[in-house]
């Protein structure tokens, strides 16, 4: 009776593209070793999440799986899509190939480390 399918209305299935995607809220902070991104992606399990780096663009794409009974009609909806998407531009001191991701209770944590050779170092001034 209950099956798991994406909470797609017939109308949102028809329109692809940015209009039907949600922008997840994020926290972004930096420490001396790298940048951390945390994003709220409720309903998203690990296998429905794609993290992609294309040149300097980091893109998070996810699809929430919501259990819905047959014949359900929306009475109220804050969220009218189950697709999340958000992109960020990385800068070249970040090691895009060393990004790690963790998903827990619908919260994604991405760690973007800084390149080792580019971590802050002290510059000596030689006596002339």
């Amino acid at each position, binding site marked *: 009776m209950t099956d798991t399918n994406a*909470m797609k209305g017939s109308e949102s299935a028809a329109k692809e593209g940015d209009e039907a995607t*949600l*922008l*997840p*809220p*994020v*926290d*972004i*902070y*930096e*420490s*001396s070793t790298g940048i*951390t991104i*945390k994003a*709220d*992606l*409720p*309903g*998203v*399990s690990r296998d429905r999440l794609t993290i992609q780096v294309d040149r300097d663009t980091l893109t998070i794409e996810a699809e*929430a*799986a*919501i*259990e*819905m*009974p*047959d*014949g*359900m*009609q*929306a*009475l*109220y*909806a*804050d*969220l*009218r899509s189950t697709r999340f998407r958000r992109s960020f531009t990385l800068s070249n001191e970040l090691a895009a190939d060393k990004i790690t991701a963790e998903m*827990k*209770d*619908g*919260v994604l944590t991405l760690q973007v480390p800084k390149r080792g050779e580019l971590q802050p170092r002290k510059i000596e001034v030689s006596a002339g």
Partner: protein
Amino acid sequence: MFGYLGGFENDLVGQLERMRREMDTLFSGRPNTAGIRSMASGTYPAINVGAAPDRVDVYLFVAGADPKALDISLQQNVLSVVGERPVESPQEAQYYRRERHDGSFRRVVNLPEDVDPDKVEARYRDGVLHITIERREAVKPRRIQVG
């Protein structure tokens, strides 16, 4: 023409606001009337309510909330959910964006009046709290005999 003045990203709040207006128009027939318990769009957590003939399903999008700390109560047909969503912030961290809700939250919704407060089930998975409430069987007409 004035597009460039909007120096802000096309944000979730904006999208939600647009959706809320659409929903208000669709379901209330009174575009400028908000529910007495409705909250500003973008408020954490987002909530969806769906109705089937035999049940009402409520979804709270509580990413990161501790399921054990959620307090769900149903008084007649008014459902309230109180909880906590702590956001840890490392001390040395330098923030660029802080969009995620931090701390306690409370959401209250009116459900259809025929929900049965004794038949409620709640599940939590991947940051979604899914509450199912059965609806009472339609009251069948009874024949009353004159004694």
